[in-house]
């Protein structure tokens, strides 16, 4: 009886052990599955990480490329700035040239009008008037005179003056003093330092021989400039050159015309006398 009970107890324990073993086996199976699952997750995570690491390295390339692009753009910017500076310098140069050309244009226009006016008349007095106007309005002289050469006496005599008495002007022999010397050589005379100039009737600040080719027919002498004019401008020297040639021709032509008119009038008078 006792043995039977022992057998039953042993069987029960075996049964319990088997149950425990079975559960242990199931648990182990679960652990293995979990392990497998975790391994799989690790592999997945590693792949994700790997896939994340790959773009990082490509970003570096992009950064490098961007750096290179920035450098390129910086170089372009520098080039553009240099070009802008160059263009600005050219602009300034053009602007200065424009001002110069404009001034030259104006001077040429003035010279053209002066020349046109000098040859607009054959009246001797009008020619002298035009010369006077040019000297006042274009050169800016306040006291000056025009002296013409008397062929018979070989002396320069004043025919017109402005700002001074004509009678007070000297009669100058060719070769005498500054005025006579300029009439002899045919060269222009200027005093550059006008501030130090002491007024002297025999020593003008400007003496311009009036020439037809190399033949001097007179001189223009300037003693004083307008109060607002402190020195000669570049165009003044061109005007002096123009006056030297054109004024001389205009004076000479008008004198010849006046003489021929006078002679014609005399001849006409004779003809009228003879035919009446």
């Amino acid at each position, binding site marked *: 009886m006792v043995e039977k009970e022992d057998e039953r107890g042993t069987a029960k324990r075996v049964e319990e052990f088997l149950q425990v073993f079975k559960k242990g086996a199931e648990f182990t199976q679960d652990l293995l599955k979990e392990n497998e699952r975790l391994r799989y997750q690790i592999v997945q995570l590693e792949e994700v990480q790997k896939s994340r690491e790959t773009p990082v390295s490509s970003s570096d390339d992009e950064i490098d490329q961007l750096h290179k692009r920035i450098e390129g753009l910086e170089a372009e910017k520098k080039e553009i700035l240099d070009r802008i500076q160059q263009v600005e310098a050219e602009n300034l140069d053009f602007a200065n040239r424009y001002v110069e050309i*404009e*001034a030259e244009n*104006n001077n040429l*226009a*003035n010279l053209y*009008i*002066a020349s*046109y*006016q000098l040859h607009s008349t054959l009246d001797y007095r009008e020619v002298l008037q*035009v010369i006077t*106007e*040019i000297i*006042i*309005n*274009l*050169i*800016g002289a*306040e006291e000056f005179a025009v002296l013409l050469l008397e062929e018979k006496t070989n002396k320069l005599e004043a025919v017109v003056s402005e700002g001074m008495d004509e009678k007070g002007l000297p009669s100058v022999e060719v070769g005498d003093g500054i005025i006579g010397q300029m009439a002899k050589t045919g060269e222009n005379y200027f005093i550059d330092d006008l501030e130090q100039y002491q007024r002297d009737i025999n020593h003008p600040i400007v003496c311009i021989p009036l020439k037809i080719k190399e033949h001097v027919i007179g001189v223009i002498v300037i003693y004083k400039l*307008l*109060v*607002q*004019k402190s020195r000669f*401008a570049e165009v003044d020297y061109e005007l002096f050159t123009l006056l030297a040639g054109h004024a001389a021709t205009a004076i000479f032509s008008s004198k010849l015309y006046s003489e021929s008119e006078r002679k014609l009038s005399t001849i006409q008078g004779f003809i009228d006398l003879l035919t009446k």
Partner: protein
Amino acid sequence: MSRYKVLVVEDSPTMRQLIVFALKRIRELTIVEANDGVDGLKKLSTESFDLIFTDINMPIMDGLKLVGLVRKDSQYSQVPIVIITTEGADEDRQRALALGANAYITKPIQTGKIIDAARNLLSLQA
């Protein structure tokens, strides 16, 4: 094209031609010339002007008298007047401006100054 009429009063034909030549560089201008102050007044009474250039030293009627008479005329009380003269002293300038001149240019003539004065007083672009 001409939008403004300018009167140039100057007894010297050379000087007048220089001023006219300079003003012709401005396309918007029509220029009328007068030999002296009296001639200028005559033209002012028959035509309408937007700007006047005048010399001071002229026979019959000088420029300053012309300025005074023009300023008394209600039609021209506001019309700009430019003096072009050999008189460079400051008192001459002050006298002209006091009489009603708007600009004072001294000789020797400088084309650029004439053009600038006309453009400024008529508010014209360069």
